[in-house]
């Protein structure tokens, strides 16, 4: 089976590369081994939120030059990074995902524990602030679904209260959810969202109105609109006050929605999405990757002119750690990851964990190597890359998106 471009990894990075390749007319396939880290998305993308111990708000890209030479942003340069990232919001909108935010200034998002954290882009119906000062004197109703355990309104209330907001908290119920509550485990955000359609939304809206009397706005866990924004619009049209959502712990409703929207857009563009398959080896011809073998396709490898690998970090099994060492399992790419597992971690859970910075090493054009030989038609993107601690910097999504777009540009301009 022959494609113009094969993308290994079907998460945010792979999908964005795939959409761009397919849009430029290249026959593109995405091989996806299980669902991606987008499933625990907070509803916000981060570009660069912290430098050392300091939170970054204004002009995050101005810090690019101070990053280490191996950092993906540094490799791209501030200007190129800005150019690439400015394409993200329009691209998401094409897929049906509407986000707000700017490259010039980070805003604040509200976390499931009620903290305010910097962010670059946030879903337009999710809670965001340009300045915590705005909270002073504001009155919020924080409304949860009765006995939904992955969202605890008093955490939000405390967090907002620290910044001068006044809050009321309430649990609401609608009879449509009683059936779901009978399960001891399945009262999850994504399952709740299946029940919140049509008349159930109307009833929920009424309950929310009753619970939020006398407040300026409503904050709710993101428990509706997994497959479309219809239920969200329906709710917002009936609630008398603005409603803002906050993502919950997994699986995240906006995460699933974003994943499915991007995947569907890729398929609508004519791309081939292969779910549940794993690349087990690659075959090279000189300095080029010619074809890849997968678990499902067995002895019928998939061929392409160019490849992108975006299999993620340890979570996506882009990196695998054994007792002794860390390797990249699909193609055996060269890595930055020292041997000796004492080096991999810091004993302080909250310190920068060395393992977070491990990944595939590349040349300046994001082309990885195997045993020192650069693969000319392969690009590595996203969390698989070495050279940054996405968690400590708050840079994961920005790097993922920038490198994914960059790889697609390289591939499509090489035509």
């Amino acid at each position: 089976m022959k494609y113009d471009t094969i993308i290994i990894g079907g998460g945010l990075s792979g999908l964005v590369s795939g959409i761009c390749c397919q849009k430029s007319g290249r026959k593109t396939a995405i091989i996806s081994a299980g669902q991606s880290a987008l499933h625990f998305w907070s509803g916000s993308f981060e570009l660069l939120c912290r430098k050392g111990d300091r939170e970054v708000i204004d002009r995050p890209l101005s810090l690019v030059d101070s990053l280490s030479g191996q950092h993906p942003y540094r490799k791209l340069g501030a200007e190129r990074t800005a150019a690439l990232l400015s394409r993200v919001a329009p691209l998401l909108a094409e897929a049906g995902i509407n986000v707000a935010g700017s490259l010039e200034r980070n805003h604040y998002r509200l976390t499931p524990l009620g903290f305010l954290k910097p962010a670059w882009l946030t879903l337009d119906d999710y809670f965001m602030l340009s300045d915590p000062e705005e909270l002073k004197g504001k009155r919020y109703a924080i409304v949860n679904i009765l006995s939904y355990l992955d969202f605890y309104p008093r955490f939000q209330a405390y967090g907002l209260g620290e910044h001068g907001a006044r809050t009321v908290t309430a649990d609401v119920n609608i009879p449509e959810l009683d059936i779901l509550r009978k399960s001891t485990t399945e009262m999850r955000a994504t399952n709740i969202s299946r029940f919140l359609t049509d008349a159930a939304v109307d009833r929920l809206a009424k309950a929310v109105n009753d619970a939020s009397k006398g407040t300026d706005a409503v904050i709710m866990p993101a428990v509706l609109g997994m497959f479309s924004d219809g239920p969200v619009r329906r709710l917002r049209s009936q609630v008398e006050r603005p409603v803002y959502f906050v993502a919950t712990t997994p699986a995240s409703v906006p995460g699933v929605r974003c994943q499915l929207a991007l995947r569907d857009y890729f398929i609508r563009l004519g791309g081939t999405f292969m779910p549940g398959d794993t690349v087990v080896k690659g075959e090279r011809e000189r300095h080029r990757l010619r074809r890849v073998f997968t678990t499902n396709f067995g002895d019928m490898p998939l061929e392409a002119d160019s490849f992108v690998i975006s299999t993620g970090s340890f979570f996506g099994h882009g990196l695998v750690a054994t007792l002794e060492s860390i390797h990249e399992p699909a193609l055996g790419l060269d890595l930055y990851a020292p041997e000796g597992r004492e080096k991999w971690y810091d004993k302080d859970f909250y310190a920068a964990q060395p393992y977070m910075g491990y990944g595939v090493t590349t040349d300046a054009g994001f082309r990885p190597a195997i045993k020192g030989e650069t693969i000319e038609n392969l690009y590595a993107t996203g969390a698989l890359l070495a050279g940054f601690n996405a968690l400590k910097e708050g840079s994961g999504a920005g790097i993922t998106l920038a490198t994914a777009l960059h790889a697609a540009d390289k591939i499509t301009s090489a035509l």
Partner: protein
Amino acid sequence: MMTLQQQNISDNNFESCIKCTICTVYCPVTAVNPDYPGPKQAGPDGERYRLKKPVFYDEALKYCLNCKRCEVACPNNVKIGDIIQSARIKYAKGKPSLRDTMLANTDFMGNMATRMAPLVNFTLGLRPVKYLLDRTMKIDDRRTFPRYASQRFESWFGRHAAASQDSYPHTVSYFHGCYVNYNYPQLGKDLVKVLNALGVGVHLLDGEKCCGVAKIANRCVDEATRDAHTNMKAIREATARGDETVATSSTCCFTLRDEYPHVLRVDNHDVRDHIMLATRLIYRLIDEGKAKVAFRPDYRKRVAYHVPCHMEKLGWTIYSTSLLKMIPGLEFIPLDSHCCGIAGTYGFKKEYYDYSQAIGEPLFRQIRESGCDFVACDCETCKWQIEMSTGVPVENPVSVLAAALDIAKTRELNGVAAIPAVE
């Protein structure tokens, strides 16, 4: 230390679960049935407790459809569906009921029914009979039964096709399954027609038994295992004579390849790669230039393709859809990959019928709205469900090819025109 902790394999696969809950998002049952604990709880979480004490087995595991969509979704490659099915086999109390045994023994029932097919078809269509089956056996009376054929595929093949097959330059062995043999021999005939036209002769396996998927689902494991050994012996013989083994049913194919080792513990590693879906073989012949195709210029159809769950798990959708897309007069409409709800014998059971239909409803809606002439799909039970629930006919991609190919011209292109074609 090199051998230590390299991977969590085989029986410990459930430990790869990192509790991300992604599987629960894609479980079709969780969405409609709160009594089902969900794949995470029923699978890896429950397994840990069952290993502690079997008393932790939860009978609600019976609600699992075995669609394996949880496995496709799992980022950690946990064999969630296998864990659940294995637990049902190991721990479920009591013997399968008469109804379950009957539904499970598709081959025995088919064998009996084909002998007096017109009568059986007539009888099973009667309201009083359905009422009786519903009340006595808990087979839902709203369910339409697949019709039985009066001539089995095997009989037809022996009489009309077998003699000429070795004249073709290549041969394969065909695992036809119960459905083709007893209910719908036309699909088997279509396969013979298409493969012959591509220059490939067709053998039957020696003493083929039911793949066992229905027996596994209904916990008739001893019979399933016995049949599996028979099938593996036949497939090994076929492989030894150089035949690939092909199936037209995605579920039979999946069972032979994956359920045998994972659920029945019947080893097949030596021949697993030689068992494949017919569309994979056909695609490969065309893709590698080993066979040529000519399509009828007058073929014009709007076709919606449905991805059966086990097709999704096999990961071979691309072969069937690529073949369909090759047909010049065919307008291809992809349907969302969504379980149709029947899951083999599951949807026949009175206690599951409503869940079954609720699971399939989004798919039915999409099909009704698609305006297609028919649905193409590689699974026979999906066919029953979709036809019954939407009124839209369903065809296997192999049958679509048989109708769309200019057979005479294709035979010529592949240099087999001289061999007498099977009628």
